[in-house]
């Protein structure tokens, strides 16, 4: 393939070629950064929670006025919930995975060393919490009924016989060491208790506030039944979530009507809501990318078609002088390849510059080189695909054109 005649042809059409190259450059810059952001956001929304999201749901309950016998009311609620045939288990708590609320506590194995203190999310739960949420232990044991006490408010914390911590937190508390059976000191409120079990995984709530932070997997389960404006976490029998979700509020209403069921929702819905900002951004950016590629492709088709019609006579002459259809197609394809190559070189520079600015302004990650390669490859393919139709039209110009109009 001879490049020189193509270059000299391009030289006579600088304006259009420069416009396409610039368009490709900006497209590449947007594409690389957008794909990178989409990939980050999607990865963020796919972080595992460690719990059974498909069968769990939450009932946000609010008592009307002051209830004198809150302990027996909540006990009765739990009995009623657990008695529903489609319900597997239930417990009363302060917070659930993906919740907006973010109750946290400091924890350390070395109270004399202030720097050893780590932050972790606090889930209150009784011996049913493990079965209801469906998290797994990697070591130690679950609470038993005698471990559980009633928690009214943080100023009167009953003594604690043991706590559960996540694997992630255990590794921060004693890097490479053993934590099972060791006494942990928590504050505030001040609690001191041995670690009796290690949870494989239990994501902290308020997932958006813990993005990219070391506390994201740090959770503690304290052996307390939450006696206050408690919410209930309920696990339905497999596949029976819809039925259980419908029956549960009615069962609670039979126990007492002195309440407002603020809302009830599945953990899957809560995950969706918690990550909706991320998934919305990912979706919008994907749409922008697709439309962008379409616009760029259409632009190439339009301009190349014009060039083909402008050069019909020259194409005819070349054909008459013995050039094959393939050679004509090659001409336009190579021309596009040259323009795209120039565009991608500028585009890579633009993408890196844009990313540096985004890093500085929005505190986001540095663009990995793979994304530049993906972007360049995508544009090269796009250019070749877009130029195919005009190139085919060029190849179909008959040699007889050369003999006309002279």
């Amino acid at each position, binding site marked *: 393939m001879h490049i020189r005649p193509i270059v000299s042809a391009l030289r006579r059409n600088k304006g259009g070629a420069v416009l396409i190259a610039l368009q490709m450059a900006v497209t590449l810059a947007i594409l690389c950064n957008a794909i990178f952001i989409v990939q980050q956001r999607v990865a963020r929304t796919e972080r595992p929670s460690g719990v059974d999201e498909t069968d769990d749901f939450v009932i946000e309950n609010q008592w009307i*006025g002051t209830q004198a016998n809150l302990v027996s009311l909540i006990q009765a609620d739990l009995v009623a919930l657990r008695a529903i045939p489609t319900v597997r288990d239930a417990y009363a708590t302060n917070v659930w995975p993906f919740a907006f609320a973010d109750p*946290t506590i400091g924890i350390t194995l070395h109270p004399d060393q202030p720097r050893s203190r780590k932050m972790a999310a606090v889930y209150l739960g009784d011996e049913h919490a493990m079965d209801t949420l469906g998290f797994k232990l990697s070591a130690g044991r679950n609470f038993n009924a005698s471990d559980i006490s009633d928690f009214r408010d943080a100023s009167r914390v009953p003594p604690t016989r043991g706590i559960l911590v996540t694997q992630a937190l255990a590794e921060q508390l004693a890097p490479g060491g053993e934590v099972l059976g060791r006494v942990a000191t928590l504050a505030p409120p001040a609690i001191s208790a041995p670690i009796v079990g290690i949870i494989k995984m239990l994501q902290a709530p308020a997932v958006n506030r813990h993005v990219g932070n070391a506390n994201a997997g740090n959770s503690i389960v304290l052996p307390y039944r939450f006696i206050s404006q408690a919410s209930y976490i309920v696990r339905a029998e497999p596949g029976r979530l819809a039925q259980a979700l419908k029956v549960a509020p009615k069962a609670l209403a039979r126990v007492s009507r002195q309440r407002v069921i603020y809302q009830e929702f599945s953990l899957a819905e809560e995950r969706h809501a918690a990550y909706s900002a991320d998934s*919305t951004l990912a979706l919008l950016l994907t749409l922008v990318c697709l439309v962008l590629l379409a616009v760029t492709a259409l*632009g190439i088709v339009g301009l190349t078609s014009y060039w083909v019609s402008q050069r019909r006579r020259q194409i005819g002459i070349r054909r008459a002088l013995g050039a094959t259809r393939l050679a004509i197609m090659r001409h336009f394809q190579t021309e596009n390849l040259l323009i795209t190559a120039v565009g991608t070189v500028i585009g890579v520079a633009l993408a890196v510059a844009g990313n540096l600015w985004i890093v500085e302004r929005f505190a986001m990650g540095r663009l990995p080189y793979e994304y530049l390669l993906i972007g360049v490859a995508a544009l090269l393919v796009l250019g070749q695909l877009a130029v195919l139709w005009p190139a085919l039209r060029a190849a179909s110009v008959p040699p007889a054109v050369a003999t006309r109009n002279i």
Partner: protein
Amino acid sequence: MFVYYLVLALRSLRQNVGLTALMVIAVAVGIGASMTTLSIFRAMSGDPIPQKSRRLFVPQLDNFGPAAAGRIVSPLPADHLPPYMTYTDAMALMRAHPAERQAAMYFTTAAVAVPNSKALPLSGAVRATYRDFFTMFDVPFEYGAPWSAADDAARAPLVVLTRALNDRLFDGTNSVGRTVTLEDEDYRIVGVIQDWNPVPRFYDLGAAGGSAFAFISADQLFVPFTTAVEHLLVGGGGMQCPKIPATGKEGVLHSECDWVQMWVELPDARAARAYRRFLLNYAAEQRQLGRFNWTPRIALRNVRQWLAYHNVVSNDISMLALMSLAFLLVCLLNAAGLMLAKFMARSPQACVRRALGADNRAIFMQCLVETGMIGAVGAVAGIGLSILGLLIARGMFIRQIGMGPTPTGLTRLDGGDVVIAVLLSVGATLLAGLYPAWRATQVQPALRLKVQ
């Protein structure tokens, strides 16, 4: 002459419908995408109360002290000043009354019911505040009026409803004088406010220096602060404590926990200076009384400073706005390329006009008129697309944080948006048409005519 150019442009645009459509689509898609994000960006970064934003201030007091960063569990803003106040400080500021108008406020929830109604009680979002809230923020009333300062002092069981809640409980009739039950006490309705949803909801952006509550319209009922403190829950709308307070409501009220928002209206710079002095004196006095062993820092921020301090415009939206502007640039480069093709393809006609006596300027103008037409059509289509985009965005924002509906102001195209859209698309397409138009004038008529 201009009309003649319009006719020529129309004729030329109709000559090659495919190419014209391609250009219009490119401009429309670019305008649609960028206007959707720009409109949301403008609403988010807009002034929620332009007539007063320079006169409304939030006082802040550093009651956590220099070691706050280590002790407070939730993150504080960069300057470690708590955004909320303690009950003690808010009440002291209310009593001293150094400002023209002032209102302490907090958010709580309560079970709401209409007496003798069969409907189940609902969970109502309550703003406990003072009378001045309504006058300070220019809240428009549909029925009735705010309660009086005397009612504030007397802890009167009065309530003001939002129109939405009044529609739900009383089918939108004038409910002034009727009663609703909050938790287990009766409150007399004194007023119903019109739809009033400042965007962003500047007066309560959420605790912990975040802006989680900036784009929701959560409040449904307004109750005198004094009454609410006595009868309803306190500290429900986000509370930050340096240490766990003593048990019960009294424990919270006398603690160093921050949960009260304070707003004051100061008519001019002099009043603001005086108020700042007052705050400094108050802080120094509290230290002398032995409450702090540090000199508490203070701050006084007006609405715009307050919104900037909380980073109300999310990074996601700024980024999306930038991306869509870059996208618009691509669309315009695209349109410029296509216009170049079109003008060059039509250069024989231009040459005939030149040969018949038209000068370069006339050819240039004719090309620009054609470009401007594409821009105008693109703008109209783009505005249509952005209305669609905003509808989609509205659907996506709902239940984003599970706290309440998004106010419509956030996802509505206002007059300013439309003006920007038209100026942007016509201006940008004209700019994109400059080079092709200039190229069209560079053709040598003699040479072209000879070839023909």
